[in-house]
C-alpha cells in the first residue's frame, strides 16, 4: 500500500511545487498531441466522411485496412518515420529527428486511422436519407455533405477524442522520434518510462496520475465544446 500512497503524495507535491521539468513535460505532451490530433483530423475526417458516405468498389477493403491500421504498434510507426527522418533517410536533410516536429509527424500518422475509422462508423450509422433529402431540397453535393457532417458531429467529436487519447498516452513514437530530450522532447510518457528505468516507481506513477488529470481536463474542455 505504501507504494500507492507514496505515489499520490508525490503527485500532489509535484503539482503544488510547479516543478519546471514537470511543467515542460506536460507542455510538450499537450502541445505535441494537440497538434497531431489537429493534423490527423484535417486528413482523417474528410477521408472518413468520403469513405462513409459513398458506395464504391473496394470500400470494404479500405475499411478493413483502416481497422488494421488502428492496431499499428506505436514503435513500428516510430521506426518507419525514423527511417525517413534520419540523416541516412530520404528526408534527412531537414534535420527533424529528435525534435517535437518529428513527434508530431509520427503521432499524426498514428491518429489518422483512428479518426478516419471512427468517422466512417459515425457516417455509416447516420440516417441514409440525409444526403438524398438535402439534395431534393435543392442543396448541392458540398452543402448536403456539410449537412451530413453536422448531423453526425457528435460521432466525429468522439473520433477526435479517441485520436487524442491514443497520442497523448503513447510512448513508442515519442521515445524513438523525440529521444526524450530534457526540456525539449521529454513528454509525460517518456518521463514515466525513464523514471521507471531509474527505479523511481512512485515518481513515475505520480507523473502518470498527473497525465490522467491533464487528459481529464482536455476531455472536459472538448465536452463543453460538444455541448454547445
Amino acid at each position, binding site marked *: 500500500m505504501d507504494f500507492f500512497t507514496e505515489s499520490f503524495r508525490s503527485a500532489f507535491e509535484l503539482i503544488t511545487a510547479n516543478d519546471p521539468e514537470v511543467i515542460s513535460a506536460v*507542455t510538450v505532451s*499537450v*502541445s505535441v498531441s*494537440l*497538434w497531431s490530433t*489537429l493534423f490527423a483530423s484535417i486528413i482523417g475526417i474528410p477521408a472518413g466522411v468520403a469513405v462513409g458516405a459513398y458506395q464504391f468498389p473496394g470500400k470494404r477493403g479500405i475499411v478493413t485496412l483502416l481497422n488494421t491500421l488502428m492496431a499499428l504498434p506505436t514503435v513500428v510507426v516510430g521506426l518507419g518515420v525514423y527511417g525517413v527522418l*534520419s*540523416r*541516412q533517410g530520404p528526408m*534527412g*536533410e531537414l*534535420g527533424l*529527428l*529528435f525534435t*517535437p*516536429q518529428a513527434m508530431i509527424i509520427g503521432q499524426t500518422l498514428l491518429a489518422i486511422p483512428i479518426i478516419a475509422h471512427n468517422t466512417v462508423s459515425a457516417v455509416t450509422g447516420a440516417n441514409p436519407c440525409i444526403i438524398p433529402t438535402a439534395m431534393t431540397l435543392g442543396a448541392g453535393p458540398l452543402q448536403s455533405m456539410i449537412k451530413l457532417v453536422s448531423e453526425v458531429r457528435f460521432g466525429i467529436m468522439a473520433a477526435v477524442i479517441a485520436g487524442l487519447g491514443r497520442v497523448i498516452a503513447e510512448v513508442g513514437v515519442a521515445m524513438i522520434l523525440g*529521444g*526524450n*530530450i*530534457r*526540456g*525539449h*522532447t521529454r513528454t509525460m510518457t517518456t518521463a514515466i518510462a525513464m523514471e*521507471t*528505468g*531509474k*527505479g523511481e516507481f512512485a515518481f513515475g506513477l505520480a507523473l502518470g496520475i498527473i497525465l490522467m488529470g491533464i487528459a481529464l481536463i482536455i476531455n472536459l*474542455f472538448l465536452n*463543453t*465544446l460538444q455541448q*454547445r
Partner: protein
Amino acid sequence: MKTTLSITLVFVLLLSLYSSAIAEERLKMSTTTSTQDSGLLKVLLPPFEKNNNCRVDVIAVGTGQALKLGEAGDVDLVFVHARKLEDKFMTDGFGVNRRDVMYNDFVIIGPQNDPAGIAKAGSSAKALQMIAAKESNFISRGDKSGTHTKEKELWQAARISPKGRWYIEAGQGMGPVITMATERRGYTLTDRGTYNAFKNQKTDLKILYQGEKGLFNPYGIMAVNPKKHPHVKYDLAMRFIEYVTGPEGLKIIAQYKAHGEPVFFIFKK
C-alpha cells in the same frame, strides 16, 4: 461561448508553435544512460549552455545505439564507454578527436547470501564460472550497451558461452536490469555509478566482486566527423569537448557526488 472556446484552443495551439519555434543553437549528443541517470549531466551541461548560448540535447541510450546515431549523423557528438567499439568508430572514420574524459569501474552484484559463492572467487573469470556452474540467475543487459560489451568480454575470458534458463537477457537499460536482478535474486554486472544510485533504497543486492583491472570502465567523448556528415555542428561540438575535458568540466566531474559518494573519477595528468 463556443467561439470563445475555439479561440482559446487556437491560441493555445499557436502559443505552443511559437514556443517550439524559438531557435537557440542546439547541439545533439548521444550518450549512455549512466551519464544521464547518475545526474552528472544536470550539473555538467548548464555552465556550457550558458556561456555558449546554446542547448545541449541529450539522447541517452546504450553505447551501441549511441555510436550508431553518430554513424548516421543524427547527432553531433558521442559520449560513451566501450573502448573497443569507440576505436572501431574512430578507425571507420565516423568520429574525430576522441578524448578520454573520466572513469569508474564495473562491479558484480548479487544477493547477500551469494548462492554461487563468488565473493571468494579471486578473479572475474572465476566468478562467472562459479555462477555458470551453479546455474544461478544472471541478468544480462543484452542490448549492445557498453556494459553488455564488457560482460561479453568477461564471459569470453572465462571461456564460457552462457546459455540456459539461468542466463536472462533483459534487453533493457542498467536500472531496469538491477531491478530485475533484485526481483529474481540474480547476479548482474553493473557500473558502480548506477549501482550507487540504486543501493539501499531500490535494491538490496550487494557488491560481491570488484577491484580488478579488467573491470576498468573509461568514458570517451568524440565529435562526429564533419567530412562524413557536413551538416554536423563540428565547431560547437569541439567547444563542448574542450569544455568537458578542460579544467572547468573536469572539476565538475571530480566533485560530483550522488548519495554522498563520487560517481566518476578523472584521469591524473
